[in-house]
Each structure stands twice: as C-alpha cells, then as structure tokens.
C-alpha cells in the first residue's frame, strides 16, 4: 500500500530534565487523517512528547517534522504558522481562570481580543454543545465548574478554531462512562467527518480501541510497540500485554 506523505514524523527525539532522561530516541509517524493513541505508564513522557511537537519543550536531539517542515529550532512567525495547525487539550485543562467560559472557548479565534461578542458567544455555544455542555455555563468562570466539565470546556476550546491536527492529553480521564463515550464519539467524528489528524494520550483501553486506528506504547523513553487497534490485546509483546491487562507482575516493574 502506498502511504501518503506523513503528517507528523518524530525521528530520534531525546529529552532529559537534568540527569533524568525522559525521551530516549522516540520514533513515530502519523499519517494525515489518522488517529493514533499513545499508551504508557504514568511519568513515561507522553505529555512531554506532545509538548515537544508543539515546540513548548525543546528536545535535546532529534527531528520533528510537520507536513515535511522541521519544527525544532523554528522561531517567531514561522513557528507561529506551524503551531496554528494544532489544537491541544491539556491534561490539566489549563483554562484561563480570569475569563468567562465563552471567552475561553473562543480565545484562539480572537487571539485574546475582546471583540465580536455576539458572534463569539454563538460560536462558543455551538462548540460547547458538541462536547455535551449547555449554554447555561457560558458566563461562568472555570473555577465554578466541576473537573469533568472543565475538561470538556478545554476540549471545546481546542476544537473551536478547527485545527488540522488535534492532540488530546487524557480526554476521558475524570469523566463518567457516559460522558467519556460522548467524547469518544466526538473524536471519532472529528477524524472521520472532518479529516482531522488526532493524537490521543489515554489510560482508557476501551477509549483507545474506539477512537484510534493505531496504538503506540511508550516505555523507558522509546516507542516499544505500535500496531492496529485490533492487535492491542494480542500484540505478542509482553510489555503491552502486562499494561493493557493491568497486571502488577510482569516485565514492567
């Protein structure tokens, strides 16, 4: 099968914080319109990987290309242009606590300017509806919402500018099973209907199997396994087996 030019390529990406090596040669490739899930232990560097791609953390070595363009070392306008392709749902939501919900959701559209209030409120309402929230919360502050609601507002904020690539850092963590499935459906529809390229970090195997075409596992700074979602439970890899079955005994200590 002739595959299209990949959307994102990571090549030997390494990153240490002081003496602690977190990423130790990550190789990963994501095709346009593909949905990839990354699994791995807590603290294995999944969030750091996403932040490297977004240029929020500078890797020590390696190459990260988006649509064939190197992102490492880019600055100023060029970096801004590349970053505009991305939307990001942060693990901790990272909502702006000084702004009302609707300003949060439409922040990227106005780049923080307070203009077009009427139109922006409408856009905020539409996007909140997509994540299963209603217009009653438009004027509330993030601190007045539950953790799960904050997560969904953050999701609405990430998708509002219609980015080509969206990163979801644990989108269903902290949600009840029904809400979690609403989010799964949303991610599937973004990928299937709008052709978004999605990269999702998750600890939720049911969610990974539903939303992802392929799954990759990060362990000790490397991608140790990747494969189609149907192979997740018969990967033939002892690390993946132990992880997806959630056993305490096995090669991962």
């Amino acid at each position: 099968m002739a595959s299209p030019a990949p959307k994102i390529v990571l090549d030997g990406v390494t990153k240490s914080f002081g003496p602690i090596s977190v990423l130790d040669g990550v190789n990963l490739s994501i095709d346009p319109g593909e949905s990839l899930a990354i699994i791995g232990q807590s603290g294995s560097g999944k969030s750091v990987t996403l932040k490297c791609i977004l240029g929020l953390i500078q890797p020590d070595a390696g190459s990260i290309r988006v649509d064939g363009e190197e992102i490492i070392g880019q600055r100023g306008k060029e970096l801004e242009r590349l970053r505009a392709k991305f939307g990001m749902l942060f693990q901790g939501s990272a909502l702006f606590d000084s702004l009302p919900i609707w300003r949060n959701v439409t922040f990227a559209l106005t780049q923080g300017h307070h203009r077009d209030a009427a139109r922006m409120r409408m856009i905020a309402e539409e996007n909140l509806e997509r994540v299963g929230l209603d217009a009653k919360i438009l004027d509330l502050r993030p601190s007045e919402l539950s953790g799960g609601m904050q997560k969904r507002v953050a999701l609405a904020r990430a998708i509002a500018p219609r980015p080509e690539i969206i990163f979801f850092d644990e989108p269903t963590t902290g949600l009840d099973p029904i809400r979690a499935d609403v989010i799964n459906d949303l991610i599937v529809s973004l990928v299937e209907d709008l052709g978004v390229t999605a990269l999702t970090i998750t600890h939720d195997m049911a969610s990974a199997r539903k939303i992802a075409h392929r799954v990759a596992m990060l362990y000790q700074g490397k991608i140790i396994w990747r494969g189609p979602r149907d192979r997740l439970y018969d990967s033939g890899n002892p690390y993946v087996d132990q992880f997806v079955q959630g056993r305490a005994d096995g090669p991962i200590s």
Partner: protein
Amino acid sequence: MTVSSPAAAIAGLLVWIGTPFLAALTAVGRVTIFAFRTIVRALTPPYYPARLLDQLAHIGWFSLPVVGLTAIFTGAALAQQIFVAGSRFSAQSTVPAVVVIGMVRELGPVLVGLMVAGRVSSAMAAEIGTMRVTEQLDALVTLRTDAFRYLIAPRLFASLIALPIMVLVANAIGIFGGYLISVHKLGFNAANYLGVTRRYLNSDDFAMALVKAGVFGFFMALMGCYHGYHTQGGAAGVGNATRNAVVSAFVLILIANLVITVMAFG
C-alpha cells in the same frame, strides 16, 4: 575541610567570589533579553490596548488610596522633623522648602516606588506564575496568542505610565500634608508657607521625579513578569517567584534611585 596548599586556597576563594558573580551576571543577561523581547514584540501587532487599560486601572487607580495615605503622613512627619531639628539653630523657616525638595526629589518617587512595587510586583509574579504552573501559558501559545504581547507588554507599559502619574499625586498630597501640620500645629502663616512652597517648586526637580518614577515602574513590572514567567514547580514555586519579584524590585528601585540622583547632581 582543611585547605592543603596556598594555590588551592586561592582557587577556592576565586570560586567563592566567582560563582555568585557569574550567577548575577547571567541573571542580568536573562532579564535584559526578557525586557528587549517584550519591547520588540510590543512594537509589532497584534496590540492589546484593552489589556493595557485594564492594567492601568489595576496598577494606578487601585493603588491610589495607599499611595495617598503614605504621602500625606510622610509629608506631615517630615515637616514636624525639620521643624524640631531646625529650631535648634533657629532655622524653622526652612520647613516649607525642605518639605518641597524632600518630597519631590526623594520621598515621593521612592515611597511610591516601594509601596506600589510591593503590590504590583507580587501580584504580577503570582498571577503569571500560577498561569505557568497550571499550563495556562502553554495553552496561550497553542491558542495562537503570544504571552509577551498579551500578558507582559501591557503590564510593563501600564506600570511605566502609571508610576509617574502616581508620583505627581503623591508629591502634591505630601506637600499638602506638610502644609497642614505646619499651619495648624506648628504655627506657620498659611499665605507665607504657600509662597515659599511655590518658590521652591522647580520644574527640573519634577522632571527628575518623573524619570525616577518611570524607571521604577518599569523595573517593578519587569521583575514581577520575569519571575512569574520563569516560575517552576507548583504552589511553592509561585511563592518563591512572588518573594523574589518583590525583593529584586526593591533592590533595583533603591539602586536606580541612587544612580539617577548621583547622575543628576553628581
């Protein structure tokens, strides 16, 4: 630990002096780059005038009560001190002149600088630092917005604009405080006192006061934003950033005050 040879002792001494010196030099370099980056970004669009006005209100308007209070009491206390000290060699008549010169040249700018720095640097460091540790600064970047233009430049320029205005207000209120106590307690003739005051109001002194105020305003916001922006690690990190911001703002203000005074009169 024992030192074996004189060479080792000298090397140890050099390290002892050199390490903090290099650290200080690095810090100055980083702050300078931070300041330049803010100014360069602020000069190119998008601009955030609404954020600037917000910050002006925060820094200027809401600091006025505390500035006014400080100025009126200090002006009055200054008049009383000069009166007592001056009466020993019957120079009480210098009270209005000393109040004007002291307020305008030194006390006005320094007091306002320190009072407002306590409020402004800490608030900026805590707010931006919290945004750092909760990943709001990262989120800003992924939402196509530059933190230097959106958060930092408005704070820096609002502070630069607000401080001179507040120093003018403080000078006026401080001189009025001296007038009140002189006329109502120390027995000065009101018209006479005002006449002397007017004679010693000097536009050069005011120019220097405004320059000082602008510099102080710039430094206090710079320290607040710099330490907030570089906050590391949780609530404790925000606490550190806040404390470092206030301490470094105070030190910079005191040094800048001396430098400007010496340059003007030296």
